[in-house]
């Protein structure tokens, strides 16, 4: 297998919260056009890494190169406009807006309204939420909220999609649906997807490459089956700490 192009080059990224070293000199490269997994025990810094990549949090130090540009220090909307989109670990949707309004909220001001509406319709169809288009976000089931958040993350046709625990709290059928969509994005549209997930089935069966974080440091990377056998990883998950 030829070495894949790099979508995201993370170099020595650091974020401390007071004494807590949430991300502590993290370095890894996310391959382009693939589905990759980011795993690690609770509190190992996965969500914080996502927050740093999307500009929600400001990194203490380190660089993140995306298409050759260092995006550390950019505002969240600037990063979003460069084609990086995300979902949240605990779904965050606008509860007092309808499904359709939620979708439109993520469209760039620069594209015409009509185009945005069309895209929203397509994506709602894609995640089977069309019937619920007029329903308020707050009235959706948790799984439906996840789908909505996922669809909303695709509104601007991003090249890199960061998913924070897409499987948590979602029933099997919905999850399979979601995974199918993710594969569709990667295979047919060449998108890069980075998934944080505790559900090892998802990671093992759907990711080409896996990165493992522990205490804010990348301790391993590789193919899912290799990661499963990696001693450091087993130690991080099960070992005495």
């Amino acid at each position, binding site marked *: 297998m030829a070495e894949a192009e790099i979508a995201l080059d993370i170099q020595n990224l650091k974020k401390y919260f007071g004494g807590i070293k949430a991300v502590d000199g993290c370095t890894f490269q996310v391959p382009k056009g693939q589905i990759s997994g980011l795993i690690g025990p609770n509190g190992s810094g996965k969500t914080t890494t996502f927050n740093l990549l*999307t*500009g*929600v949090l400001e990194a203490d130090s380190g660089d993140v190169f995306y298409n050759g540009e260092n995006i550390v220090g950019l*505002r*969240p*909307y600037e990063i*979003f*406009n460069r084609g990086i*989109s*995300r979902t*949240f670990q605990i779904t*965050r*949707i*606008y*509860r*007092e*807006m309808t499904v359709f*309004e939620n979708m*439109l*909220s*993520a*469209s*760039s*001001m620069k594209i015409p*309204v009509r185009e945005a509406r069309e895209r929203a319709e397509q994506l709602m169809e894609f995640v089977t939420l069309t019937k619920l288009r007029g329903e308020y976000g707050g009235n959706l089931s948790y799984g439906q909220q996840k789908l909505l958040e996922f669809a*909303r993350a695709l*509104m*601007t046709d991003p090249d890199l999609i960061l998913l924070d625990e897409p499987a948590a709290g979602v029933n099997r059928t919905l999850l399979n649906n979601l995974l199918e969509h993710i594969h569709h994005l990667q295979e047919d549209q060449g998108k890069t997807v980075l998934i944080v997930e505790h559900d090892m089935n998802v990671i093992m069966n759907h990711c080409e490459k896996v990165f493992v974080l522990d205490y804010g440091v990348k301790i391993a990377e590789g193919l899912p089956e290799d990661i499963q056998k990696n001693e450091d990883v087993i130690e991080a998950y099960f070992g005495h700490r």
Partner: protein
Amino acid sequence: MQEKAEIRSKYWLAVFLVAAYTIPFGVGIYTDNVFFDLQWLADLTTVILNGIMQGGVYAMFAVGLTLIFGVMRIINVAHGELVMLGAYLTWMFFFYVGVDPLLALFITLPIAFCIGLLIQKLLLNAVVGGPELTPLLITFGLGLTIIHIVEAIFTTDYRTIPYAPDAFQLTETIAVSRSKIISFVMAAFISISVFVFLKLHRLGKAIRATAQNADVAMVCGINIFHIYMITSGLAAALAVAGGALVSIQFGFNPETGVLYTLQAFAIIVLGGRGHYIGALIGGVMLAVIESLISFMIPNGTAMVEIASYGMMVFVLLIRPRGLMGPKEN
């Protein structure tokens, strides 16, 4: 369990409001200020109508306060000072340039919008989302600064703008002052315009989105600091418009802003913090209570402020959500 507490608080709020509206009548009867003849009823109707008209203006500037709170969770205690500033701006254009107070809105509103933008950019953007006390103290300082600047320029004398003082005869016995009607119509127009903007315009939707969840808005391509600035600009414009409309009805001096801040707070507490329609309803309700107090209670004009204080304290005790606010998390 929670459901029950919710229903109980609603019930007590209703009891409180009924009491608030009946107490002036009670005091009026006790002090022989209430006569059940036709003339008195006509006067009462006039007073209530005036209250509603007045309420429209209150509602408008209260909406500005609720917008800022809703979008940024900032309590802007300088809001009333912007109302006062609006009155002085209008007065200046009226006396020095001879511009009609309502036409002056075309000049004062853009100025106000820019002032709001600047306040946000220079003072508040850095502290949004931090500890609540910081923006509170900043706006407190800002309010005092505005008062002192205005005092230095215009002294503490009361100013008035003579404008449409004659009354509009609804019937033979019921008359409403013309400036009140004009103010009400303008306030309604402006409030509805802003509402429609928030509901339908893309930027308005982005403002609502930021209010509902800034974290999401941020990663969905919305420059939230840009949104904060527009929100502050709008709020300042609403306050200054309020100032223009009260300036043609009442005298004002640099200290009057404090009362408007208080009223705006009472209104948004009653209506439900961050709730647009709630603020409109709360504004009218407060103004009507105020007019009843000043109509029926001897020396009532001096006591109207009690309505605001009482409203704020009791609603916060009974039902912090107010009439339409979101559930506390």
